[in-house]
């Protein structure tokens, strides 16, 4: 975005040229590139956000698409052409049922605490499960919940969005329906909570340990 106070000696390159630059930068990397980084790498006065719009249009329907992931952009092959790429297919680590379920809960309920995940699944979450998701860079630690014990929360990452071809977490399949059905609510059990009662203090300790582990 050419700022009005930009007293650069040079005019920003024409938009067609900026499109070429965006193409080149995004073609050169496998990782999504944020608009901020594009701005930083392109000559002064460029407007990558606008160039991206043009490039996206240009690649619509092609074998390679421009897709948005969070606030970053990347070229990805069209989903219908995956059959051509047997050779490139990377075998992702087989996730356990517990891990898949935990991942879904983090994605749909984020930010979510360990205690909340356990409440939804009705079973204690083994440390390994969350660790595995964090190691895969699909889940990361979010802000602490401002409730007693200040437990850490978990959120999904940009890598998660990238992996599942989601522009942002609001695009999760069926999210709206789940929300309107009240199924994403964290409804406390009526009266005393027999299910989560005695575990509560343990959870807090657990969470603290974990944060220390990550914040080293």
């Amino acid at each position, binding site marked *: 975005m050419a700022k009005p106070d930009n007293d650069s000696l040079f005019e920003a390159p024409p938009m067609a040229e900026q499109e070429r630059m965006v193409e080149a930068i995004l073609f050169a990397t496998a990782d999504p590139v944020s608009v901020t980084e594009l701005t930083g790498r392109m000559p002064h006065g460029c407007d990558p956000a606008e160039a991206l719009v043009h490039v996206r249009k240009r690649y619509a329907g092609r074998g390679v698409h421009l897709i948005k992931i969070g606030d970053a952009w990347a070229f990805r092959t069209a989903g219908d052409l995956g059959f051509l790429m047997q050779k*490139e297919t990377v075998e992702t680590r087989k996730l356990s049922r517990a891990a898949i379920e935990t991942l879904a809960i983090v994605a749909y309920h984020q930010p979510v605490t360990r205690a909340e995940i356990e409440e939804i699944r009705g079973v204690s979450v083994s440390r390994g499960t969350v660790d595995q998701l964090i190691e895969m860079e699909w889940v990361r630690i979010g802000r602490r919940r401002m409730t007693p014990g200040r437990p850490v929360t978990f959120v999904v990452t940009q890598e998660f969005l990238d992996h599942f071809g989601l522009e942002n977490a609001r695009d999760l399949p069926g999210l709206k329906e789940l929300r309107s059905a009240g199924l994403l609510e964290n409804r406390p059990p009526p009266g005393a909570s027999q299910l989560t009662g005695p575990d509560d203090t343990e959870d807090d300790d657990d969470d603290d340990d974990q944060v220390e582990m990550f914040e080293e």
Partner: protein
Amino acid sequence: MTTDQFQEDTQRVSERVAAEALIVDVGAFEGPLDLLLTLSRTQKVDLRQISILALAEQYLAFVEQAKTLRLELAADYLVMAAWLAFLKSRLLLPPDPTEEGPSGAELAAHLAFQLERLEAMRNAAAKLMARDQLGRDFFARGITEDVQRVRRVTYTATLLDLMQGYARIRTKDDFRPFILDREAVMTMEQSLARMRHLIGFAGDWTDIVSYLPEGWELDPVKRRSATAANFAASLELAKEGKIEIRQGEVFSAIQIRKREPRDG
């Protein structure tokens, strides 16, 4: 054996097999809620219409059966059994107005909500995993180029730094422990300034020794310095085209004279 009896038997057998399969597989359940969700499927109704009472009975029967088979159940399954037994009594007995706490119906509704939510998350997880996935259905760039990281360093200083720096130099001068006396030294610049001024007065060839400042010819040290300075200054003036220089023979006197401007 009548056909009816036979059918009854096979039914019992299949039921028993199913029940045992459930028990043998107990390790595969992700806790009591998961088991309840599996049991609830046998009711073959929407989770919203499920009979929690029937479900509680199913669960308790399952736990009983596990006991007869001397299978050890994890503690949380037993905690759930105890809770469901309590729930069952609440649901069956007329509510006691003196009793505090949530009613049986409220507890049952919450359990139904939990089951529905767990199932919803299961379905969501399945939908998520069914999506096109990076590296399986769509692909990132295969040939990547290295982005060279160029570190540009900008230097900065404040006016205070500048002034302190200057002050430091000047203070150093103030406290210089020893100052060399330069009285006996004439610099070429000094000589040049003098000669530039004097040259105009000399009309004809003059020995450069005559340009020595007054008194300098007496002190050998001063004379040497001034002569050298004058000579260097003469060469400089000649280079500028202001004067001409000549020397008759080796070691004879060096003479200079003002050069007349040609076009003057």
